[in-house]
Every structure is written in C-alpha cells, then in structure tokens.
C-alpha cells in the first residue's frame, strides 16, 4: 500500500511514468502477439481465444521484472538525470573540499551531500581511531541520535579485513555476502549492520585505511551499476586526502590548545612558587620584628594593674597590637594561597561559620548601617572541609561587600543552599554596594587587583584559590544599581575520604592536626 502524500512529487511522477510506459509496452506486446500469433502457431491452437492470453501471461511473468528495471534505469538516466546530477554534485563537492580544512565541517558536507544527492537513507563518515581498534563517527545522517560515537571494528573484523584485501573498491553487501560461507556471511552481515549500510566506500590515504563512508538506501530498488561504483571509487580517492589533511590539522589544533593550556598552568605554577618563596621569606623576616613589637606592647598592657597607664597610651598600645596582627595577616594570606592545602578536614557547619564571620564583621557593618541577612538551608548535607578555609571565603566576601557598600548604608544577603540535583552547595552572596565595572569583572579575582589605595588586593584571589581547591567555581554578576552577586559552587563531599580536592592532599594524620592556636 502506498501513501503517495508522504512522498515527494518527483517520486510520484516517476512511479506514474514507469506505470504508463510499462502499460504502453504491455499493450504493444499484446498487440504484436495478437498479430503474429496466427502466423507462428498453427491451427487449431492459433485460432483458440485463450492462446493470446496464455502467451501474454507467459511473456509477462518472464519479462516484467527486467523490463521494469530497464525502464526505471532508462528514466533515471535520461529523464530525471539523477545519477549524472548526483555525480556532478559530488564532483563539485570534492573540488570544494580541497580548500576546506575544518574537519567537522568537511565531514558534515560529505555526509549531507552524499545523502541528499543519492537519496540515501543512512550515510556516515567513520574515521579510523589512532589505536586502530575501531572507528569514530565524524558525521552521520539518518542514524539514531543516541548512537555511541565509537564503532568497534578492529583490524581483525571481517569488514576491515575484507577492505584490506579488496583495496579502495566499494563493498556491496548483497553480492559480497553471497560469495561467503554461511558462517563468514553472518559475521560480515553483522559488521554491515553495525555501520547501518549496504555499501561501504573505504578511504585510503597513502595506502592506509583512514576512514570509510558507509551508506544505505531506503529500498532495495536503489541500484548502482559498475559505472557508479567506479565513480564512487574516484570520488573516494579525491576526498581521502582532504579528510586526512583536515584530520591532521584538527590534531595540530588540539595539540596547540593543550600546549597553551599546559603553558598557562606552568606559568601559574612557577609564578606561585616564586610568590610562595617570597612570602615565606617575608613572613620570616617580618613576623619576628612584629612579634617583638606586639609582644612588648602586650607586656606593657598586661602590667597595667601594677603600673597604671595613661588612657591614650593604653589605646596606642592596643592599636600597636592590632596593627601588627594585621601586618602579619598579609604575608599569611600570601602564603595561604601559595601552599597546597593539607589542612585538616572536618565536618563543616556553614551556619556556624557564617555566624562567627558575621560576629567578626558585624561591628563594622553596624557602624556603616549595613543590614546582614542570612539564610541557610536546614537540609544542607554534610560537607567535609577545612573550617579555616571556609571562614576565609566568607570573611573575604564580607570585607569586600563592606568596602563596596561604603558608609552609605546597604544590605548584604548571604544564602547557602543546595542545588543541581543535590550535588552542589551554592553560596550566593549579594551586596547592594557599588557595581563592578564590566571591564573589571574578569580581573577582580587576579592577585593584587584592587580599586582601593589601602588594600592589598588578595582577598578575592585567595577566595578563588580556596574554592578551586575544593573543585568548585566562583563567579560574579554585577549590574548597575543592583550591586553585585558572588556565586560560589562547591561540589558536595559525602565522606571524609571523598573530598574533591584536586590531588592527594588529604592529610595522612589529619585528626592530630588541631590548630588550637587559631
């Protein structure tokens, strides 16, 4: 049963034409038979009314199929010019591909043009793996979307063996299977099914099988003749070097990217170790004098019961103690980001850390009329990390927000919640302060980037380093009049052993490392 409305007009026209011509030939044959029969066959059969009918039936049974096929081929070649048009299109394509070096675009062009020009059901360009144990689909047409990109056709699979034996000829499923023994034919059929095709056109470059175009038709009616196969072979020969070249270029591009990546990483590493050395040196040289200054001031302060101090002296001493600690913090921050974190891991309570941090900055915030709104999801899963590091994240964000808001008053909104299928802990940190200029958005996480004179510019940098150590990400959104929103995403950690830290940074004896000094 035919549903012509589903077919394209050309196909319908083709069917009608074939029908008409066949009817005409049939009528002619019947007429000729009726004319010639009395002369050929003698009485009494010649005059019998059933004789022409029987003869016609006989002729119909024997000749219908070959005649139909002849008519079809004749029509295709002379009236629809399908093949010649297809050949012309494909030759044009081959010509165009010579200048195209984009592998993906080239693959898509080959597959789509092949499929369109030859009215095929399935076409795929399969590129051979470097490892030689399979093919990868570079582009496919008519294949289910869910197909895996890899096709396992090793060197010892019947199809690949056959290709190696036959060279760059088109393999045709039907005749090939007939020429094989039952067992071999079964295995070969499986390979053809794997690439969903009736024909396989291998592409050789410098005597090496690099790819194949596998294609299949809508119906068994689609036939190609020797000339077509000859043409496919030539097409394959002209396309193969293009595929090989673009593949090569693709490899080069990828290698180039990787090189750039590792260069950047190396640069980052050397830069860090330089800063680390510098920071360790500075810390040692600076912390000793700081310890003396701060120590002496503390001694004086503690002796005030015995030798009372003038109020302004006492205040000055307090300032000295506070400021020495602040100075030490700078080098400590520098050190903190440059070191691999082997900090002890413990169960993190975001709620508690947030409360502690708010207590720290709360005084300054209240002076600046900043309202702090805190929201934590009560169903947060257990998170393993280092309290100091997480506190550092919050503290830096708070200090940054307080600075951004200034003394105009404003609002800081912190939300810790779980998102993305319960696998990511998301910290959303919104402040109503000055927006960050668009050109600074990329730079605010850089070391020593600051818009304030008195700041060092390490806060957000250190924050990002810590977030990265947890395998997380930080980003910032800022819009005019709406302040800025920092979003930190930390992958959830379910057990102490499953921390997402990049390398083997898990403390070996983490439990004894309790920093009581903090």
């Amino acid at each position, binding site marked *: 049963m035919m549903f012509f409305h589903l077919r394209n007009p050309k196909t319908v026209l083709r069917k009608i034409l074939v029908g008409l011509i066949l009817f005409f030939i049939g009528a002619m044959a019947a007429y000729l038979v009726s004319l010639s029969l009395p002369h050929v066959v003698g009485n009494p059969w010649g005059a019998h009314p059933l004789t022409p009918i029987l003869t016609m039936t006989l002729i119909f049974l024997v000749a219908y199929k070959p005649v139909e096929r002849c008519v079809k081929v004749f029509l295709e070649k002379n009236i629809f010019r399908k093949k010649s048009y297809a050949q012309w299109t494909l030759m044009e394509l081959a010509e165009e591909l010579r200048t195209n070096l984009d592998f993906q675009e080239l693959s898509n062009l080959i597959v789509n043009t092949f499929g369109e020009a030859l009215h095929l059901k399935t076409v795929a360009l399969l590129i051979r793996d470097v490892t030689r144990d399979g093919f990868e689909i570079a582009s496919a047409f008519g294949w289910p979307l869910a197909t895996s990109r890899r096709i396992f056709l090793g060197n010892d699979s019947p199809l690949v063996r056959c290709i190696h034996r036959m060279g760059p000829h088109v393999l045709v499923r039907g005749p090939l299977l007939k020429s094989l023994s039952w067992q071999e034919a079964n295995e070969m059929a499986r390979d053809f099914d794997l690439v969903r095709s009736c024909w396989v056109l291998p592409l050789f470059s410098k005597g090496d099988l690099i790819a194949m175009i596998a294609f299949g038709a809508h119906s068994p009616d689609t036939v190609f003749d020797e000339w077509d196969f000859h043409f496919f072979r030539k097409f394959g020969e002209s396309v193969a070097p293009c595929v090989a070249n673009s593949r090569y270029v693709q490899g080069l591009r990828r290698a180039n990217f990787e090189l750039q990546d590792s260069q950047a990483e190396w640069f980052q590493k050397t830069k860090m170790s330089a800063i680390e050395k510098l920071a360790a040196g500075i810390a040692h040289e600076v*912390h000793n004098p700081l*310890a*003396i200054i701060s*120590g002496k001031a*503390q*001694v004086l302060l503690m002796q005030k019961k015995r030798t009372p101090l003038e109020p302004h002296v006492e205040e000055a001493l307090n300032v000295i103690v506070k400021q020495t600690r602040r100075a030490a913090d700078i080098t400590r921050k520098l050190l903190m980001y440059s070191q691999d974190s082997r900090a002890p891991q413990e169960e993190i309570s975001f709620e508690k850390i947030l409360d502690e941090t708010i207590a720290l900055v709360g005084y300054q915030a209240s002076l600046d009329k900043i309202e702090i709104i805190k929201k934590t999801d009560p169903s947060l899963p257990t998170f393993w990390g280092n309290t100091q590091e997480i506190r550092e994240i919050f503290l830096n964000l708070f200090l940054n927000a307080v600075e951004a808001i200034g003394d105009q008053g404003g609002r800081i909104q912190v939300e810790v919640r779980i998102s993305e299928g319960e696998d990511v802990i998301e910290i959303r940190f919104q402040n109503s302060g000055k927006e960050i200029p668009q050109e600074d958005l990329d730079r605010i996480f850089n070391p020593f980037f600051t818009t304030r004179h008195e700041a060092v510019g390490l806060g957000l940098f250190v924050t990002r380093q810590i977030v990265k150590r947890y395998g997380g990400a930080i980003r910032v959104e800022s819009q005019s009049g709406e302040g800025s929103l920092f979003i930190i995403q930390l992958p959830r950690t379910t057990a102490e052993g499953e921390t997402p830290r990049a390398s083997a940074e898990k403390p070996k004896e983490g439990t004894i490392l309790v920093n*009581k*000094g903090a």
Partner: protein
Amino acid sequence: MKKKLLLVDDEVEICEFLKSFFEDRDYQVATAHSGVQAVEQVESFRPDVVLLDIQMPEMDGLSALREIKEKYPRVKVIMVTAVETQDRIEAAMRLGADNYITKPLSLEYLEKDVQEKIESLAGI
C-alpha cells in the same frame, strides 16, 4: 615548686620580653638561642614546658624537638613559628609537639596554653 619554662628563640628580644612576661607570672624561666643550647638546657634545667622556635641557626627547632622528645618525652613542647607552612606544622606534630603558635604571639593565649600544659603534667 616553681613552674619551669624554657624559651628557645634566636631573636634575643623575643626571649627577653617573654622572659619578663613569664617571670612576672611566677615562672622560673631559662632561655636558649639555638637548638643545641636548647637540648643542653633541657638536660640541665629540666623545664616543664619548652617554647621552641622552628627556624634557628645551628640545630633547627624540628631537630631539637626530636632530641628533646626522644630523651624526655614528658617535657611539653610548644612550637613557635614565624611561617606556618602546613608541612612544617605537620612534621612538628608528628615529632610529638604538643601544640604550635604563630608569631606575632598573643601573650594572653600563650599563657593560657602554657598553663594548660603544666596542669596536664600535674594530672599525670
């Protein structure tokens, strides 16, 4: 009996103000300025608690710590460090240090900690 404290730091100034601070609080205090001196002092002075700087000439704090803990495991050692790198802290803890504090020091905290260590000694 007076509580005995040994201060080890190559910075004389640091030893001095710590000494005056702890003597004020009724400690018997001795000082040393290198790892070698520290080990000698532990043997002769027999302190309850040692405040040991990590970075020092001659023998550094970690080696001194190892020797002290080998010979006198009962002596409490608090490491003092200017640079708190994780590997150093970890190494010190593995060698048996009882705590560590970083410079600049908070005297209030330091005193509390030393007190704690001495109390834990008395408890044994």
